[in-house]
């Protein structure tokens, strides 16, 4: 049994792919967390998952196209695959879409719930509060700095330098710097001695100061430190500027930072509100899409794997239905379907064995039948079998030879129907048909009929056929052409008679003739003159009759012995003309010849063939008397092209049907004179030359002898 490799429904590759899809989704989900290290990779992960979805869509599209083609081709298992895939997609899609819909609803509502007017107001108020607090502190620091400026307006640069530290410490500033009109640092004091270079106001500050507007602002440039920067004009000559940096108390700075952070975060979230919804929706949709696509693709693969045995079974069944029993299906799994496939394989094997056995038996029967047919075909006996309705079922070649009718072409017809085109057979075949239908056991009958070659005698035997349960299932008839056999028997008998006659009669004839002639010679001088005529007439009669008897005995001896002594190639027209020349005396016999314009040669004894023509001419002379006219035709036979046809037609009264049947038999004659052996000898010579002779009906009324001889074409 051919067992293919056993595979799991879901391959390792598929499991790996699913794991990758899940891992990718997990990474993307993790990346959405702001604190995740994967956060910067969010876009790439999103792109990878989108590409994965596109790839899965392409794969599913390929599978759908494949399924569509299978359905179009009405391939085995395609309908089952479509049904299973449709069912799976519906079963997978329906709950997934429901969950998706409610998840989206929940997600959007959750995000919306983060924001409301109260929180907006609270955030803005808290920021405003912080700003107000810082503004108040800045105004106070400005006034404080303006007070310091007033203290320095009457001091020189060097005096200011001496008092700067104490003034800074007194004001609680972290840095105090005195600038010239040209923004040059005149003096500076810092709480941190390491900061040598003081903070330098930028151009915008100077621009504002030149417009006699004091500058106060929060300085956030130092990380983690909030300072109030105040720059004001010192009303001295020349004008100078003093800059003070006041640290905001840590607690207030922290609170302000905290409020700002919360406000900014809230503002950011508010700004990203729609983006958040879309982003989460996109992620959720992508997760759902990727999961569904992966599931559908895996479903396609799994269903194809599951349907494969069914598909193979359908194919196998179709093959078996079409007669191909060699189908062996691969067993893909040892489950119920695998068992079914194994059973199918076993069934196919048994069917193949049964078919082989049946085929072998059929071949044996066919061989037997062919053997029997060969035997029947080569039998000289005609065999015709009939069905229960006595219609022809089979016929062998010998039946055709006997009846000269292609009997095997009339299968399914009765014997009389066979005679439709051969009315001369009607009586014979009707008789046989009656015998068949009436007989209950073996029967035998001798029948004769006029065939193309003359009278034929048949020995018919028949028997009805019965089945094992006794029903009549037809009949069989055999036909033996015994014409030649009977003729041979007759010829042999007549030959024996002729031989005995020649032997017994010819011997005493010579002494009788001699004795009669001696009597005439001795008594002619002794008898009275008036008795001499009687003597002469009596002895003359004896001598003549003895001569006649001798001639008759010669004919008998000629008939009794074999005539064909020497064989040579003979041009028959030439031979016929030679014989005709012997009868060339005017008024004796008139000949009309019709010789075909071709070489017509036969192998035979020229003396014997001359004898044939002599006998036929003699027969015609005796039949027609004086003024006999003979028409001699020599041509190639129309029926058998390698045979020669030689016809001799006289102008006599012809022969009756009854006479025609026995004209070639010895001692059959219609003439006063004659032994009745002339035509018998003709027939014997022709048959010894392998030919045929028969007397045909001639429309002119005379006798028409037809002789057929094998042509010497190609023969030595």
């Amino acid at each position, binding site marked *: 049994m051919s067992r293919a490799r056993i595979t799991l429904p879901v391959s390792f590759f598929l499991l790996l792919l699913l794991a990758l899809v899940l891992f990718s989704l997990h990474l993307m989900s993790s990346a959405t967390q702001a604190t995740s290290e994967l956060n910067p990779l*969010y876009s790439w992960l999103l792109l990878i998952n989108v590409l994965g979805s596109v790839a899965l869509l392409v794969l599913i599209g390929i599978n759908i196209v494949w399924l569509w083609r299978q359905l179009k081709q009405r391939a085995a298992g395609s309908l089952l695959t479509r049904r299973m895939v449709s069912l799976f997609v519906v079963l997978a899609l329906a709950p997934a879409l429901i969950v998706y819909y409610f998840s989206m609803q929940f997600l959007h509502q959750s995000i919306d719930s983060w924001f409301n007017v109260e929180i907006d107001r609270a955030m803005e108020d808290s920021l405003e509060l912080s700003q107000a607090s810082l503004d108040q502190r800045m105004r106070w620091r400005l006034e404080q700095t303006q007070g310091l400026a007033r203290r320095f307006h009457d001091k020189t640069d060097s005096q200011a330098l001496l008092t700067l530290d104490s003034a800074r410490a007194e004001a609680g500033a972290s840095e105090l710097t005195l600038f010239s009109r040209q923004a040059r640092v005149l003096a500076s004091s810092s709480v941190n001695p390491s900061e040598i270079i003081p903070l330098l106001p930028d151009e915008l500050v100077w621009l504002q100061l030149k417009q006699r507007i004091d500058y106060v602002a929060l300085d*956030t440039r130092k990380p983690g430190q909030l300072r109030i920067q105040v720059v004001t004009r010192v009303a001295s000559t020349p004008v100078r500027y003093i800059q003070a940096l006041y640290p905001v108390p840590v607690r207030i700075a922290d609170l302000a930072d905290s409020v700002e952070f919360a406000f900014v975060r809230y503002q950011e979230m508010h700004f990203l509100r729609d983006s958040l919804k879309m982003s*989460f929706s996109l992620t959720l949709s992508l997760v759902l899409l990727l999961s569904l696509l992966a599931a559908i693709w895996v479903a396609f693969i799994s269903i194809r794997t599951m349907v494969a045995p069914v598909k193979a079974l359908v194919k196998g069944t179709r093959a078996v239905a079409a007669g191909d029993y060699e189908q062996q299906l691969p067993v893909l799994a040892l489950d119920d379907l695998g068992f079914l496939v194994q059973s199918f394989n076993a069934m196919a094997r048994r069917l193949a064995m049964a078919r082989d056995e049946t085929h072998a038996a059929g071949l044996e029967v066919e061989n037997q039948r062919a053997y029997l047919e060969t035997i029947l075909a080569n039998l000289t006996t005609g065999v015709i079998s009939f069905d229960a309705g006595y219609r022809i079922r089979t016929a062998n070649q010998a039946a055709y030879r006997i009846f000269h009718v292609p009997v095997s072409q009339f299968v399914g017809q009765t014997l009389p129907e066979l005679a439709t085109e051969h009315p001369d057979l009607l009586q014979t075949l009707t008789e046989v048909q009656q015998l068949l239908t009436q007989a209950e056991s073996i029967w035998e009958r001798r029948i004769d009929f006029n065939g193309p070659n003359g009278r034929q005698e048949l020995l018919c035997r028949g028997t009805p056929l019965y089945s094992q349960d006794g029903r009549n299932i037809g009949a069989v008839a055999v036909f033996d052409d015994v014409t030649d056999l009977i003729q041979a028997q007759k010829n042999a008998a007549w030959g024996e008679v002729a031989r005995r006659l020649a032997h017994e009669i010819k011997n005493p004839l010579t002494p009788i003739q001699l004795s009669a002639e001696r009597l005439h010679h001795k008594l002619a001088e002794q008898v009275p003159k008036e008795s001499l005529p009687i003597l002469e007439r009596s002895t003359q009669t004896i001598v003549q009759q003895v001569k006649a008897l001798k001639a008759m005995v010669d004919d008998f001896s000629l008939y009794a012995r074999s005539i064909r002594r020497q064989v040579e190639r003979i041009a028959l027209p030439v031979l016929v003309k030679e014989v005709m020349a012997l009868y060339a005396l005017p008024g004796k016999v008139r000949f009309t010849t019709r010789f075909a314009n071709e070489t017509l040669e036969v192998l035979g004894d020229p003396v014997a063939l001359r004898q044939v023509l002599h006998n036929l001419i003699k027969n015609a002379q005796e039949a027609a008397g004086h003024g006999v006219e003979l028409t001699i035709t020599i041509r190639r036979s129309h029926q058998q092209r390698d045979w020669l046809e030689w016809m001799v037609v006289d102008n006599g009264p012809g022969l009756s049907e009854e006479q025609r049947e026995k004209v070639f038999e010895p001692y059959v004659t219609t003439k006063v004179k004659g032994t009745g052996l002339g035509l018998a000898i003709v027939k014997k010579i022709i048959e010894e030359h392998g030919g045929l002779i028969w007397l045909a009906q001639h429309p002119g009324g005379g006798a028409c002898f037809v002789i057929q001889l094998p042509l010497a074409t190609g023969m030595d």
Partner: protein
Amino acid sequence: MRACVNVKRGWWLACLLTACQPAPEAVQVARLTAMRAQNTVNVQANITFDLPELPRQALHSGIPLIWQVELKVAPQTLYEWAALGYLKTRFTLRIDYRALTGRYALTRDGRSESFASLAEVLAAAQTITQALTIAEASWPRQLAWRMRFDYEQLPLPLRPFAYFDAQWALSTSWQVCPAPE
């Protein structure tokens, strides 16, 4: 009815053509000059900002706008590429808005400046200088400079949409200028 269909078709066509038209660039390079000081090339780019509404709102919502300012040599031949390699320098340019102070901060290569208005900070950011030190032996023929908006620094929910939103197209393409001899 036919006219109505044609009007509708025309409207859709107009919308399509409008959508297909390239959006005006928010950040454009007005001038790019390069000067050599020994083995150092100093590039000065004068750019103009026209910050679209969406980035402006994002900035005011506390989302910093961050660019990567990049300068590199631009090899023209395989030989130059083999000699120069991938020589490049980069610094970060960032604009912040502080809700507490109502001021804007411009941070260039770690140095921060404070401005009272958006116009001021954008004006301050118009001039960008950048230096690249190159070996004397392999002095290039061309330099390339660009200012690339860093989408990956945007908040995560904004990123996928910012990539495909024309208002967030705040980058310049590579600007090529001949290297000074």
